[in-house]
């Protein structure tokens, strides 16, 4: 019996060395370990073994089964890793990737959102107002004389009912102050319209961003600091900011802001208008509100506004402003960077 076990073991262990694939291994398993397999058959011989010898034979048989099983497992693992390696070796990692379609935000959205985030860092909230406005919000409340050329039908779009398309986002200043007592600290991005013939640098509809800060003791120093901070955040800390005295009906003193920055091509660029809110604007608001919440002897404020389209053009070196509204995908997709 022991001799049989030993010879079976020798035969099995010799044979497994010759097994080269999965199916021969399966056949081997059936041949030796299966229900009718050699080892099972040998185990059945236990019946004829003397009782006192049984533990010894049992043990030997067990060892036989274990050694074969363990070799089978080893072999199985070796075959599996061999198959895995072969499978991986067939993966051609040099083939091009399958494109994942990536959209893009409009360059104006990128710029506008950067601007909003900078002002939010300073604690400004976002405000909005309608595109369709009345003369009071667009002109009267902003201290624009009744015969001012801006009110002209040549320059401003009117509706048949006498209302108009706002010519600037400064209307939002008025909307906000009508509804909210000081302090007011807002930025308002939005569309504005002027009856300009469209060309490489003009659109009849453009995008502006307006800012307003009204509180006690707001001065030109705040105006200067805030706008300088904004433009340096937007264009880089090396950005030069220049304030030129100017005139707007709704601010006094008024300034135009010029910027010179590497990111804008290193040339002085007229970018924004700003100033201290004119007392006449506060008076118009007080009258409308029926209170003295914006008494110009108590509160003061600054306002600023700038166009985003030309800025986006200059930042991205876009040669023609009309490209911003043509929506050519070959253009838009250039702005998909993170």
């Amino acid at each position, binding site marked *: 019996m022991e001799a049989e076990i030993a010879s079976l073991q020798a035969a099995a262990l010799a044979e497994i060395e010759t097994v080269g694939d999965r199916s021969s291994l399966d056949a081997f398993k059936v041949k030796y370990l299966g229900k009718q397999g050699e080892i099972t058959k040998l185990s059945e011989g236990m019946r004829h073994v003397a009782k006192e010898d049984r533990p010894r034979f049992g043990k030997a048989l067990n060892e036989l089964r274990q050694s074969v099983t363990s070799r089978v497992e080893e072999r199985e693992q070796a075959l599996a890793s061999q198959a895995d390696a072969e499978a991986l070796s067939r993966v051609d990692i040099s*083939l091009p990737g*399958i494109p994942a379609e990536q959209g893009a935000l409009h360059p104006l959205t990128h710029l506008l959102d950067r601007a909003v985030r900078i002002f939010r860092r300073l604690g400004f909230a976002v405000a909005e107002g309608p595109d369709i406005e009345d003369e009071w919000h667009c002109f009267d409340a902003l201290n624009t004389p009744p015969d001012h050329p801006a009110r002209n039908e040549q320059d401003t779009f009117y509706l048949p009912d006498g209302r108009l398309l706002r010519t600037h986002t400064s209307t939002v200043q008025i909307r906000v102050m009508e509804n909210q007592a000081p302090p007011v600290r807002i930025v308002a991005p939005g569309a504005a319209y002027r009856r300009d013939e469209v060309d490489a640098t003009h659109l009849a509809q453009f995008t502006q961003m307006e800012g307003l800060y009204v509180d006690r003791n707001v001065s030109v120093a705040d105006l200067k600091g805030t706008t300088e901070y904004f433009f340096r955040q937007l264009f880089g800390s090396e950005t030069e900011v220049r304030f030129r005295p100017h*005139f707007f009906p709704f601010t006094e003193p008024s300034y135009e802001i010029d910027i010179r920055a590497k990111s804008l091509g290193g040339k002085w660029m007229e970018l924004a208008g700003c100033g201290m809110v004119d007392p006449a604007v506060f008076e118009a608001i007080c009258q409308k509100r029926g209170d003295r919440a914006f008494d110009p002897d108590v509160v003061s404020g600054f306002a600023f506004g700038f166009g985003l389209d030309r800025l986006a053009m200059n930042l991205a070196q876009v040669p023609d402003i009309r490209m911003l509204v043509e929506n050519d*995908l070959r253009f838009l997709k250039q702005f998909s960077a993170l």
Partner: protein
Amino acid sequence: MNISLNWLREFVDWTGTPEELATLLTRTGLEVGNIATRGADFPKVVIAQILEATQHPNADRLSVCRVDDGSGHPRQIVCGAKNFKVGDKVPLALPGAVLPGDFKIKVGKLRGVESEGMLCSAKELSLAADADGLLILPADAPVGQPIATLFPPETAFEIEITPNRPDWLSHVGIAREVAAFTNQPLKWTRPAAPQTTEYAGRIGNLERCPFYTLQRITGVKVGPSPDWLRQRLESVGLRSINNVVDVTNFVMLEIGQPLHAFDAAKVNGDVQVRLAGEGEKFLALDGREYTLSADDLVIADSARSLALAGVMGGEESGVTETTTEILLESAIFQTSGVRRTGRRLDLHSDSSYRFERGIDPAGVLAASARATQLILELAGGTVAGSAEVSGTEPQAPSPVALRQGKVNAVLGLELTAEEIASALSGLGLTAKEVSEIATTWGIPSHRLDLTREVDLVEEVARVVGIDRIPSKVSANPAEPTKADASYDFQIRVRGRLAGLGLSEARTSTLVSPASVWSEAEAIKLKNPLGEDQSFLRSSLIPGLLAAVERNLRYGAASVALFEIGRTFHARGREESPTLAIALTGQSRASSWRDGAAKPFDWWNLKGIIAALIPVELEWKKADAQGDLALVSTVSANGKTLGLIGQLSPAAARKLDARESVLVAEIDLSALQSIPASPVYREIPKYPATTRDIAIVVPATLPYGEIEKTLLAVREPLLVDIEPFDVFSDATGAKLAADRKSVAISLTFRAPERTLNSDEVTASVSRLRDKLKADLGAEFRE
């Protein structure tokens, strides 16, 4: 407006460069555009005369000249030009001269012959863009004198003047500002007013013309203006006409008061200032006939209108070569009236430009006196009587009180009372009453813009300069607004759509009538730029489709666009934030792995909307509208959000689309109002069981009906229904042509235990029975 530096220097000393002056003017609030220099201001370039010219021994094209440079020692110059003769006077650049382009003149040899300088062309002296040969100077040009004596250097500044500062519309006005900002005296005093006599009844409308003066001058001889006058006018871009007209223009440019001279011989009877008759015709100096309205002010005689007051003179009453007697007008016309007339007739002049902005009342008679004196000087003649004065010279502006504290509060500075006073005095304001707190300032007559305290604050700010004001930046949190919430929401929607592969478009709010689906519901402009921009868009879809078309024409294989913008409606909410999507072409490009490209279809769009709005959506077929042949509304929680649609094939072909064109439009406010509840829901602990069924139903039966039927059974364990194959065969070979086979995967799960096979089987069997009973479904096993 153009300002000449030479002219300006008559009234204020300026030793800096033109660029430095431009910087100073900018600091005062003037916007300086182009700076044009003319003339030839080159040291060591002199007027020379050619004494002798011989052929160069070694070069056919060159001559050797002996020229007189005024030094008494003739110079030898080699020259390549041929256009001169001996005796001509020409510009000579002496050794050491530097010509434009940093061209340094030295003594040198040309083909072996020494040349002690260079004879110049007009181009070499930047006097002309091109030149053929030497610049031949007038025979009387003084030899040896600098070339600048013939071509005096001149710098003209193009200046933009803000509407609040009419006092800047003259050389004296600008000089006044330069003097104030450089602490120099103004070298000008206002000419004394002439003798006047009251002339009553001349002005028919005192509101439109508060003050009118006429000076008669007889015996004038109209002729060309002298060089100095011609040069002054030309230096700022005006054409010389004749000595009388030139004087009126000159005085306007000098002190800002527009003047007009009438030919007295052409005036019949009395001069009147009155409103025009409605429909009255007027032939203006520009040769055009204008039809006037009863709101236009005219200067008229007993027969007809002679001039459009403050705007333009008449063709028939102007000064000509034959004029011998003139009436010189100097007046004030109401700003808004002149503006209305100018706008109505689209007629603008240097005169109306000034009257529209406001006139220094003290300048009216001064200008008359100055012009009279110049006319007498240049055209002879005598003053006939006193200036006839009608109306009253308007009062100088009222004094304005300024609190020192206010200045510092607005500017963020701590200026002393003395600093403030010095700033304002420099500008010609005079302190009237001084107290601890405030000073009352007298305002000079030319500063019509200074009427309020804040106007004086601004003056102090200008003089002190913004550079002196410190920069202060502070962060104070404002209460977030509704606009903040919608801004953030819209940015998230934009980001998600870009992540889904769509690119953001921005189209115009102003659209053509063809882009408006219902004119009754759309808002129209009263004064559009053109028919194609005459409506406010009521939908974003037409604009996006135009963008689709443009991209397809450029050969785009795939177009996936979205836009977030306002739409405008005549009914309901006037302005609504809206999202629109347009898709066509490849949704998936062809690749080595997936084979051929796949076009966008209805279900891609549905998938995008579902990914954008991660709540249970309800889709409902709706009627076709406009170009949309297939339409479905989409709602959530019973609230309609918008629609999706597919263009009719005909409409798609019009866009050059070869595949389906899909669009969606969603109301962003409705979308934003869907409650976002990021609250944890338990993740299933027990495994799900999936069973597939395949049914054959009529080809026209919508899948939605099948799903509805399955849901109607209310199987408590059924958690998901997913179709995974839809098959039909038009040939009828594999399946009757009017039938389709739909394979559906049913997922069952119980939250608290693992399901056993029998209960799932029982459930599936109930579902099958229902499909059979309600839809007549057959089963493919």
